[in-house]
């Protein structure tokens, strides 16, 4: 298992259309806050892991550009990519380096400037995030299209409705309205969502996460260093990872993401969480709601709801504060925004602040178990990362 690893510092840029900054300036907004909140000096950092998907933005080697700007040149570093789960993959990579004894302090940053390209180009790049030759070249699937295939199958089989999907958007916009870092810090009504135009049937504009510029960063430290730096480390208790098929046609069903189910199982096992009733062990979760259907699938894949019943959880408002388990109190990808490589790290920042009781009033979860879960999906279940964060020191 190796050494224990904790989050000791966090930073988060404002998400949105950030035409006011270039990629390095944007990354530095998160990096500078992460370093200062950790109370460390740059010279103490042993490793810099940069999450970046890119394609839509001009800098090909974002890590070196960001590291130069941030005064981190000379240190070990590299780029990590796992589509929309890049941020979680970057955290895992840094975690593993610390756990193995290779590093004591690592900076993890995820950054994306998606608005450097026009929307049809971004739609093109994300649409290619599957199997390019067999599913894009001739058939032009888009990312909303991929998840729409799941939504159609799920609704057709289980009786969920387009209203149920919109209920997820309403919840996440409601919590985003209290998050100043969110791209859309405003509430919406069910009617607004239902009346929005179709992007990929049955998904409508308000079912979809936006195209976002943003950065998030965490400083990770070994147990020994973390305990010197802070009285309130947030531990990485366990990480589960799984990869799904590239071709959607090779999947045996379209009502859940197999990779997410497997990743959750791994993460729960390592953390000693009962997979039959995980909500009992957790206070709050951030799940990958790139589309509203994805949040409903997550409820089932994570075991918050029984199979076929995920949509009932949102219908009964069980994922609001006070319900079975509050989900996406940050506003989620849906309303906070989804700068691909920053998303998993943004989840870590949010859950650290949730566990430490430091988020804005109205969207702070009740912290009783001292445990939080991040569910970060790359592509359409092409990658799945489930990470458990904890206030108490995990078992060695």
């Amino acid at each position, binding site marked *: 298992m190796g050494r224990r690893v904790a989050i000791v510092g966090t930073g988060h840029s404002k998400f949105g*259309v950030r035409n*006011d900054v270039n990629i390095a300036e944007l990354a530095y907004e998160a990096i500078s806050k992460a370093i200062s909140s950790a109370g460390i000096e740059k010279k103490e950092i042993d490793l810099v892991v940069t999450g970046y998907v890119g394609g839509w933005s*001009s800098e090909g080697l974002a890590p070196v550009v960001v590291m130069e700007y941030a005064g981190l040149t000379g240190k070990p570093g590299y780029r990590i990519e796992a589509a929309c789960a890049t941020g979680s993959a970057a955290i895992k990579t840094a975690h593993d380096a610390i756990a193995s004894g290779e590093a004591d302090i690592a900076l993890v940053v995820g950054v994306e400037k998606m608005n450097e390209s026009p929307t*049809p180009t971004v739609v093109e790049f994300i649409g290619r995030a599957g199997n390019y030759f067999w599913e894009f070249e001739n058939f032009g*699937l*888009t990312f909303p299209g991929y998840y729409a295939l799941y939504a159609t199958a799920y609704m057709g*089989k289980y009786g969920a409705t387009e209203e149920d999907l919109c209920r997820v958007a309403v919840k996440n916009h409601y919590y985003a309205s209290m998050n100043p870092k969110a791209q859309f810090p405003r509430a919406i009504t069910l009617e607004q969502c239902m009346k929005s135009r179709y992007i990929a049937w049955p998904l409508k504009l308000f079912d979809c996460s936006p195209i976002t510029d943003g950065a998030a960063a965490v400083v990770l430290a070994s147990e020994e260093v973390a305990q010197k730096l802070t009285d309130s480390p947030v531990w990485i208790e366990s990480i589960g990872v799984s990869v799904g098929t590239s071709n959607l*046609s090779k999947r045996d069903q379209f009502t859940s993401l197999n990779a997410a189910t497997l990743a959750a199982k791994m993460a729960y096992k390592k953390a000693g969480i009962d997979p039959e009733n995980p909500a009992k062990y957790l206070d709050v979760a951030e799940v990958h709601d790139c589309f509203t259907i994805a949040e409903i699938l997550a409820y089932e894949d994570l075991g918050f709801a029984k199979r076929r019943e995920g949509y009932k959880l949102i219908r009964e408002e069980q994922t609001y504060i006070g319900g079975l388990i509050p989900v996406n109190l940050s506003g989620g990808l849906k309303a906070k925004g989804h700068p691909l490589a920053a998303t998993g790290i943004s989840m870590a920042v949010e859950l650290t602040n949730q566990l430490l009781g430091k988020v804005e009033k109205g969207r702070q979860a009740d912290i009783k178990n001292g445990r939080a879960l991040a569910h970060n999906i790359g592509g359409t279940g092409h990658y799945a990362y489930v990470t458990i964060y904890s206030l108490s020191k995990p078992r060695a």
Partner: protein
Amino acid sequence: MSNQREQADAFLAQMDQFANMMKQSIGVPVLLDQKTGVALWWDQREIKLRFVISVEKIRKFFEALSEGKLLATKCKKSGKILFPPQVDCPDDPEDEVEWVELPKEGELVTWTVIYVKPYSFGHYNDYTVGIAKLTNGVQILAWVRETDPSKLKVGQKVKIEIVKREPEGYLTYEIVPVQE
């Protein structure tokens, strides 16, 4: 009404026009963001992205399309059918593949209608992408010849047709709903 690709091209042409005006007035292609007024550099470099992809080992698949056949590979020992076709059996390095023809009948597993299109698909009308399960259990993803979602349902009978994709004019395959 212009298609989505023409709209995207018109947007880029407009940006070029603004940038040219700025080059004449201040000497550099720096634009002001229409919403926020911040300064943006309009990239003076443009690339075309187009790949050449090896299909040597699966060329039979493409040759068979002109004979109206849809092929897959089959692992001789395990009997497992692989689609998209591949020449290595993933479960057994000793196993070998042979080419087999896929059945053309099946049922619709799921679908979506794409309204907002990628740039390189922006010249098409709205199109439907679906997954069909063929009678031998193999699943295949393709366009579905029906763009009204109310006329499609999970589990309905479909057939596969080899069709010519226009305006490019090349052979591909399509899922076609069958009246029951």
